[in-house]
């Protein structure tokens, strides 16, 4: 656009009156705004704080927390040790040792003998989830990941499978069993939305 373009609209800053130039009316307006917030939170109970240990935060449906390794209908690990997740991982936190699948597993050639994720190196980007051709690795809504040592935070296959057992009811797999019924994204704090359901969310303790 050229400077003399007829479509160019020139805006002048609004002229302030002498009273407005003292900025007092604007300051008073600001005081009203903050005052409303202060009163609202102090006496109106409008504070949005979640009293964490007593009151559990429910993350949104697409929250990326601790990983899990999904199981199929027969309880076998779904992973086929194709290494796509480990390749996609920008943090190099996935370590898979593949092995030939047992002969009775006719639908696949390989399975992971060991599947280790270093949860401290992971940046929770979700690329592994995207890369997986069989929807075996998924990120859950578990956010309270803690440990007392670095070793404790390196999750092996058993631990990752146990995360699946822990979260399979609250967060159904995106495909496979049970049948995919992708819920529409709901607001994070809506009790009906997908995501882990804390059992205590019904009786939220009063804020003090």
């Amino acid at each position, binding site marked *: 656009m050229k400077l003399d373009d007829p479509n160019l609209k020139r805006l002048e800053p609004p002229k302030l009156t002498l009273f407005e130039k003292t900025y007092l009316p604007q*300051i008073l307006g600001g*005081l009203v*705004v903050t005052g409303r917030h202060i009163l609202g*939170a102090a006496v109106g109970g409008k504070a949005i704080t979640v009293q964490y240990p007593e009151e559990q935060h429910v993350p949104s449906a697409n929250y990326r927390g601790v990983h899990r390794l999904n199981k199929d209908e027969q309880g076998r690990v779904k992973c086929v040790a194709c290494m796509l997740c480990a390749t996609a991982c920008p943090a190099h936190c996935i370590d898979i040792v593949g092995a030939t699948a047992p002969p009775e597993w006719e639908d696949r050639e390989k399975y992971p003998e060991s599947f280790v994720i270093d949860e401290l190196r992971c940046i929770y980007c979700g690329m592994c989830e995207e890369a997986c051709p069989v929807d075996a690795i998924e990120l859950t809504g578990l956010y309270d990941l803690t440990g007392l040592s670095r070793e404790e935070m390196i999750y092996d296959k058993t631990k990752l499978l146990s995360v699946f057992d822990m979260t399979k009811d609250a967060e159904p797999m995106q495909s496979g069993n049970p049948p995919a019924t992708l819920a529409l994204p709901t607001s994070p704090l809506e009790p009906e939305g997908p995501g882990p359901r804390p059992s205590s969310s019904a009786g939220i303790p009063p804020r003090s």
Partner: protein
Amino acid sequence: MATWQFLVILVKIVLIVGIFQGAVAYMIMLERKIAAWAQDRVGPNRAGPFGLLQPLADGAKMLLKEDVIPGYVNRPLYILAPAIAIVAATIGFAVVPFGPVGTDAPTVSGHAIEFQIAPNVDIGILYVFAIGSLAVYAVILGGWASNNKYSFLGGLRNSAQIISYEIPLGLSVLGMIMMARSLDLGEIMAWQEQNGLGFIPAWGILVQPLGCLIFLISAFAETNRLPFDLAEAEQELVGGFHTEYSAMKFGMFFLGEYLHVITVSFLMSILFLGGWDPLFFDLGSNGWISAVIKVGVLFFKVFLMVVFIMWIRWTLPRFRYDQLMNLAWKALIPLALLNLIVTMILLQLFRGIG
């Protein structure tokens, strides 16, 4: 001076120092609560019922933390600076009247108990300002002795800021002083109580609105509170002058700042909000009951001022440095002079009537 009077003064000093140190602890709690509420949070609520033990926890933390003195600091000045901060903030209370003084004071077996450590100091307000300006030494020395460029910048900014804002601060109260014809804080309060039209009191905020506003703005700058806290602007200067301070030395700067806020709130209440004048009804002039009510009213006004100062903190963003200087030199000082001149003219014209 009789031993008895000496004892009374000692008791008053101990009481006032104790009360205000305790008040500061709870002011920090109040500040954190108001900060939280302004941001739609709840604020500290874990220590004790409603978080009321939080100040104790904070104090214990300050005292028990490791007191690091960096190797590159100028040791004597580094240690002196927080001491100056707290001493300068505390001794200002010597002339602040907390309740009835002079003839109004209640008596115990014929001896008047005056609610002021040093009663009837003729130059009360001058003393408060003089002591208040001493606080700048704490900041400058602290910043310089820390041997750290951020601390030094904080100290420099603060020195220029305080020197600039002393002028409008002083000019703004001159109007009140001329009207009350006294520098004694007690007399100024008494004047506000005795004058006035009908039920409208002659509070400073009504007879000197411009002076009141200028005083308020300058007071914010003098106490280093937002929007004028350039000396410790965290975003630009790490922590400003107290970057290198830890544990109780940092706590002493903190204490000093809050004591300063209390002093300023007292001055504001006394000079412009009528002191212990409880609007609309007249208290008897004598006796302990009226004295206690007066102390209560004054402390309530001070409390409101403190809340207001914290409220402003969450309303206005920090000034840029040139804006700060422009405000002082191009706006506040000319306005304060104008206010002074208009007051003088009016006083001269209506001398016989008022």
